[in-house]
């Protein structure tokens, strides 16, 4: 029983962080049709922003979270304004933007390295202490991570499904040209999506750095896992990404406990290969039906 709770808590914590990372990635892919290679750096920048600014504004978590999200949103918006916007209508957008955002990721990582150095800092913005549940010690930070992820993802779900703004995003994702013909300024929708996804990434970065450490390359691993999750869910499927994130988090925790930490990621990758063989469109993806 103790072990089960331990695995559950670890899995949900991992899943919550993966969900924050991959929902944003899926939102960008689903709306703009681009794979954002700089998404990991959006997370890193969120974490560093909270680390360096919360010293002035107070080390409380809500402030740190807001700073991280604002920094993530800002870098997302800037990425759209300075890079993506100019490539949207050009030929081979998918490939070009992938290379461009990969380049941006390298650049940003080096800038962070230049400013902060390679020393792994600990994230000061976090909650200390533990609570006991059925005899198992659970860190408060794990509870915070799961709560933050659930609140933010519910907020995104509400925004997308229940508001006019969300309907506009979904319509633009389904058919950009038709959305334009309705009078939607789709470049602005893209800008908003990049901001939203950036904010989620910033929050993810803060949460991840609170469990590990801050370093310029800290976003690489979460980006890879978020990508894996998006592929398993079906690229661009926002709901599927959220569900798969928690499922894979729980799976990873179980495998790590039963077989050892080093088997966690390989099992995840094996699962991706199986999914791609069995269902190339992903678990929640739909086969494209062409109708005349």
């Amino acid at each position, binding site marked *: 029983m103790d072990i089960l709770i331990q695995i559950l808590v670890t899995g949900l914590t991992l899943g919550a962080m993966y969900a924050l990372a991959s929902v944003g990635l899926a939102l960008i892919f689903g709306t703009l049709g681009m794979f954002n290679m700089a998404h990991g750096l959006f997370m890193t920048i969120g974490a560093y922003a909270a680390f360096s600014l919360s010293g002035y504004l107070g080390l409380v978590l809500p402030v740190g979270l807001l700073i991280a999200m604002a920094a993530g949103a800002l870098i997302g918006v800037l990425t759209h304004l300075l890079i993506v916007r100019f490539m949207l209508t050009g030929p081979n957008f998918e490939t070009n933007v992938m290379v461009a955002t990969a380049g941006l990721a390298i650049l940003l990582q080096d800038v962070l390295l230049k400013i902060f150095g390679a020393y792994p800092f600990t994230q000061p913005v976090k909650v200390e202490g533990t609570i006991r549940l059925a005899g198992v010690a659970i860190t408060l930070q794990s509870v915070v991570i799961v709560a933050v992820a659930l609140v933010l993802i519910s907020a995104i779900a509400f925004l997308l499904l229940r508001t006019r703004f969300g309907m506009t995003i979904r*319509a633009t994702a389904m058919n950009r*040209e*038709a959305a*334009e*013909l*309705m*009078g939607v*300024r789709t470049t602005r929708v893209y800008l908003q999506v990049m901001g939203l996804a950036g904010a989620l990434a910033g929050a993810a970065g803060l949460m991840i750095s609170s469990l590990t450490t801050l370093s310029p390359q800290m976003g690489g691993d979460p980006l890879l896992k978020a990508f894996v999750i998006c592929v398993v869910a079906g690229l661009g499927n926002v709901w599927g990404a959220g569900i798969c994130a928690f499922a894979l988090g729980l799976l990873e925790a179980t495998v790590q406990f039963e077989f050892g930490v080093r088997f966690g990621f390989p099992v995840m990758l094996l699962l991706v290969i199986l999914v791609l063989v069995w269902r190339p469109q992903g678990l929640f993806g739909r086969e494209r039906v062409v109708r005349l």
Partner: protein
Amino acid sequence: MTAPLLARDLVSGYHARPVLQGVSVELVAGRIAGLIGPNGHGKTTLLRTLSGSIPLRSGKIEMNGEDVSRVPVCDRVGRGLVHIPQGDQLFGDLSVEENLRMGAYLRDDQKAVRQTLDEVFTIFPRLAERRRQTASSLSGGERRMAGIGRGLMAEGRVLMVDEPSLGLAPLVIEQIYEALRQAVQSDRAILVVEENPSRLLGVADAIYLMDAGRIVWSGSAAETVNSSDILATYLGGH
């Protein structure tokens, strides 16, 4: 009185290949104009150029005397230019009602929008029955109705409809043309594209015949019946 939509000497196309080679059309408020011509001769390209989806190379597009040649698509919609594209282009995962509401995206008065929604449901009762279904689950005829209904939701002053009868059963075609006839009001102009001219003869007030990227003939509906140019174009007499 200035025309709701006036196009002069339009040249546009895809990549290096111009499709339109100097096209001029004028729409009149309260009238339906028909654009006919064989497939692949620039009818859809003309609509896409007018709505702004394809950039204009040269020529001029005016709405009520105002130059909109360089105005982006969404702002042309804001000025009342509504393009109902070929193949419906519905938002597949949105419900029928959400699709219709997207048509009124730029309208702020929600009470008036609801009223237009009721009007659309009166014209197409089938859409009212299917209002909660996703658009991708509709049949071909229902999708066309949803497409036309979505265009009507904008309450635009100029309505451009691309091949409304394509691939539909005669009964449905009759229903759709009845809707267009109702949609012409004193301040609204309509441009309908069809490959088959016979559909337009009882409906359109003026006919433009397009061939190889040019308007080769235009006239009233009555003149069309007697014109040998029409037959010549379709039978390859040029």
